[in-house]
């Protein structure tokens, strides 16, 4: 069923790729699962807590992956000798 001679592109290779994937999964779980832990009608700066939690983690998720993604780009450029 498998062809052992080929590289598996699903698996991250470098440290930055592993960090990107780990950060992606962590933040995803914070929104996906964590929201249920804060499911209360409480205002945070005037915003419903569920909304503030999801938006906040969404921004953290984006910023972290942007940082790791740019590091992957730098690493990639270096490996190409650019």
């Amino acid at each position, binding site marked *: 069923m498998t062809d052992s001679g080929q590289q598996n592109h699903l698996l991250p290779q470098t440290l930055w790729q592993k960090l990107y994937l780990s950060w992606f999964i962590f933040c995803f779980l914070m929104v996906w699962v964590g929201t249920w832990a804060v499911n209360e009608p409480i205002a945070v700066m005037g915003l419903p807590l569920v909304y503030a939690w999801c938006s906040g983690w969404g921004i953290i998720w984006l910023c972290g992956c942007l940082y790791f993604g740019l590091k992957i780009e730098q690493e990639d450029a270096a*490996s190409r000798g650019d």
Partner: protein
Amino acid sequence: MESWHYTVAIVILYALLILWVGTGRWTKVGRVAMDDYFKVAPGFGFLVLYLGIAGGFHTAFAIPGSMGFYHAHGVAFAANILWTVFTPLGMIYFIGSRITCLGRKFNYITPADMLVDYFGDGKFRVFIAIYTLSCCIPLMTANVTGPARLLSSGTEGHISYIGALLIMGFMVMIYVTSSGIRGVTWTTVAQAVWMFVAVWAAAFWCLSLIDGDLLTLFNRIQETRPELLTLPGPQGLATPQWWATFPVFGIALYWAILPRGFMFFYSARDVKTTKKIGLTVGFYLMALYLPAMVIGFTAFYYFPELVGSDADNSFPLLLATYAPAWFAGLIVAGGLAAGMSSLDADTNANSAMLTKDVYASFIKKDGSDRHYITVGRIFVVFLVAITVLAAARDWGLVVLMIGVTASMITQLLPAVLAVTVPMGIRFTKVGVTSGIIAGLTASMLTRFYGGEIFPSGWRFDPSFWGLVVNIPVTLIVSRFTTPPDAQAVARIRAALDEEFRRSK
């Protein structure tokens, strides 16, 4: 002048701007070639494609649909944050960049081009094209319905719903037939900016309307309907099962592999451009939905009695009742921008599939590129006409079909992954075809009979159930059927290794 005249004047201004942007000299190329009409052969750079994808990925659900969702289901809408971030960082960054890589290397034009290059040509091409096309017609229809209602309400009915549909259809027809993907992308750039300004302006106007700040709005909702502030929402929509599967399987996984997504990825200048868009476009996608809560809750505060599909009309009603006419015109044009930016991209992509995958593959194989582009333009007219006709009829059926669309496109995911992400697993043409059919059957059964089949704790999104069946069927059937041509697989794999696994 009556107030609705101002609204019409601003919408006319918007229409002229879009027609100018969509047919200007920047959308023209000297070369007459299919790969420079349906996609951009030299490729777009970061900024243009960024705004093109940003606008193209937001449909009429952005304006006015999202506000109606907040009105009906409250903060359950926050589930959309999952897709606005998951789709760029997961699907565009990881899969979209690979589609760009293969599309540029082998000059693909349609989604089927990529799949048949790997799995083999023949009837599989037409199967993929027709299957995908049948998914996309309802999506196109949905994109004109909401904005047409908005335009009709914003002009106090002086422009009828049908008239609004015809205006949108006519505009899209003009610039897509004139300039293909270039017209689509340049207009989407303008539309992305317009809708972003419109939605944020609307949020600040709503705060001024309630004469307070965010906390004032929160307190008023807590006093009138506190269920809007928590999950699962007043109607019980956002159950743990819905939350766990709808944003990812019902939206995120399929949104980037819609045909319009393929055309954008094929039109990127290089892999780096697509990756950068993947890393950053989530900021735009998310920021467009953030003000929707303020608008939806304000609309609820003023019109709490609206229920069902009338909730979608809450924002248009708020505008028509309280907004200055010029401001309503700005927002109405923003709604048109949201709908048209997806409708045009879908029309171009579907026209490409009909031309390349059906007409050029089975009806006239030896035509010139000029001939095929002419045929493509005829298909554009045909597709827009079907869309307008469908939108003028049964809206309930359209809503149902949008859900079906999500399930259908999601079933293509194993085939797309098989081509773009080498992972040492055997996928065959018969395997993925069987998986698509089995997955679609499972998702349809759960969509229409899920309430009878499953206990309440098992009512996950139908697209999820489709994949649960699709993946094992694909793998098992692939185990026993003829593998794709080894040379084609090796060629595609080498291109991906060269781009993504070099010197690591």
